[in-house]
């Protein structure tokens, strides 16, 4: 069952690579949150109530509901639904991105497979690395900062997957702190994103290139 989730997760990466609609991005990030919740439930062998609540809060509520909701509101307020760039151009770019995604996933798989580490869950690890790299790549090829934020969330999801893949056992307090940090960083980012929407006419990064040498 968890393998299915991972495959769907990787599929969302392809979709993200191809998508030209902000709405799609938001939907996909929500779906990823739900998938992560599923994976986490399956992987959690000893069910601790506090832990369960944390996982629930982090994936289902935070990643699956709150963040997509926030992003919806922002995109609506700033009247962005379709990316500004020329559609055909985006298609071509998207096609390249698909090939790159495939390559990244393939290489990640090869890399994780070669590690031969007994404690490593190869499927999650592959997905995690692919998500991280793809997240950065999404940021580099897009100009819209909402998509930047979403790509950041993709990286976050990758990290979450990796934490599962390595069976990390951080102390509870640390886990909570990390959760809080990520949560608040996204919040802060959305707040500033909103500000940018007010200050500038649109939320393309072309506006944000004043600071350079």
């Amino acid at each position, binding site marked *: 069952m968890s393998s299915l989730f991972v495959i769907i997760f990787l599929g969302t990466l392809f979709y993200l690579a191809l998508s030209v609609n902000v709405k799609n991005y938001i939907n996909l990030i929500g779906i990823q949150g739900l998938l992560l919740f599923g994976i986490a439930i399956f992987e959690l062998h000893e069910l601790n109530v506090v832990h369960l609540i944390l996982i629930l809060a982090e994936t289902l509520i935070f990643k699956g509901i709150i963040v997509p909701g926030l992003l919806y509101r922002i995109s609506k307020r700033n009247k962005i639904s379709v990316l500004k760039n020329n559609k055909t151009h985006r298609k071509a770019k998207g096609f390249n991105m698909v090939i790159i995604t495939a390559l990244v996933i393939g290489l990640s798989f090869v890399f994780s497979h070669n*590690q031969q*580490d*007994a*404690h*490593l869950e190869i499927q999650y690890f592959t997905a995690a690395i692919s998500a*991280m790299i793809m*997240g*950065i790549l999404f*940021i580099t090829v897009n100009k819209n*900062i909402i998509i*930047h*934020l979403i790509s*950041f969330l993709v*990286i*976050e999801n990758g*990290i979450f997957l*990796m*934490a599962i893949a*390595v*069976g*990390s*056992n*951080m*102390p509870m*307090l*640390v*886990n909570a*702190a*990390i959760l*809080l*940090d*990520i949560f*608040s*960083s996204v919040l*802060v*980012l959305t707040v*500033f*994103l909103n*500000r*940018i929407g007010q*200050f*500038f006419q649109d939320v393309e990064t072309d*506006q*944000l290139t*004043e*600071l350079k*040498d």
Partner: protein
Amino acid sequence: MIVLFAIVTLIASGLAFFVRKQEINHGIVILFTLCSIAFNFYEYLHIDEVQLNMIKPDALGLIFLAIISVLGFFTAIHYRTYANKKKETDRTVSIHNSVYILFLAALAGVNLSNNFGLMWAFIEGTTLTGAVLIYHDRDKLALEAVWKYVFVCSVSITLAFAGILFLSVAAQGTNSVDFQFDSIRALAEQMNPTWLKVSFLFILTGFSVKMGVFPMFNVDIDAKDMSPSPIGALFSSVLLNAGFLAIFRFYAAFSGTSIQGWMHNVLIITGVLSILFSAAYLIRVKNYKRILAYSSMEHAGLILLAVAMGKAGYVAALLHIIFHHWLNQAFFIK
């Protein structure tokens, strides 16, 4: 005591936020910094004593803590004159001061924590609080700087977190890992060197933005440029420290293993590239604050080089850090 300090921090921050009278506000901050100096002294008396499982003031941390509290005090005083000179509104001042207290506390946490995860969390805390401090002027450029800063920091911090996760992969083979510095250091020899290398690579990259060295120095420079000058000074001194300390903790933990030579090479590459790029920009840039920012990047590169040089280098690095701070503080404030 830690808990007490945390409570004091929260109360002071809250008071600073709600009391909108400027002079009282500054008074609260200055009082808080004095408290933190006292706290620093207390921790000095309990050196190398594990508190709350995850807090342990060691010598290095204490030195940096001392720098933080003393510089924090002076910065607070300086901010008062700065605010008066610029005729800031009450709201700006109170938000600034409230967050400033949290920022200092987060920095103190970075220096005191004995756990990689907790340290990471505190560093993320400095990003979030730092963001508010940068966005002091509330104009377009400040907004741009803060957006870039928070965004890139968030990405970098996830990279660093990935590094910690890789470390835990490496640690899988050994039993009982609680991510304490000492236990990692003790067990590092048994760990898989490849994973350690990957981990160190991610951590170096992830924290490079805090330390302001290659490859993620850019947003740090912008942040120092756009924040008010007392904060810029603090960024290029104590925040640089925090980044350095984070990298150095990992370096120290791994230094007993076979990858030490490799780490030196990586540090040399990073240091040299930092110096090279900062030098290149130092020639080109005309803005006074940016020049200072690049110069502190150059110094950060030098510090990394010093660490890579080995034994005598540590002392050199430490001395360099301490002297660099006072000078840099002086320049920025000027």
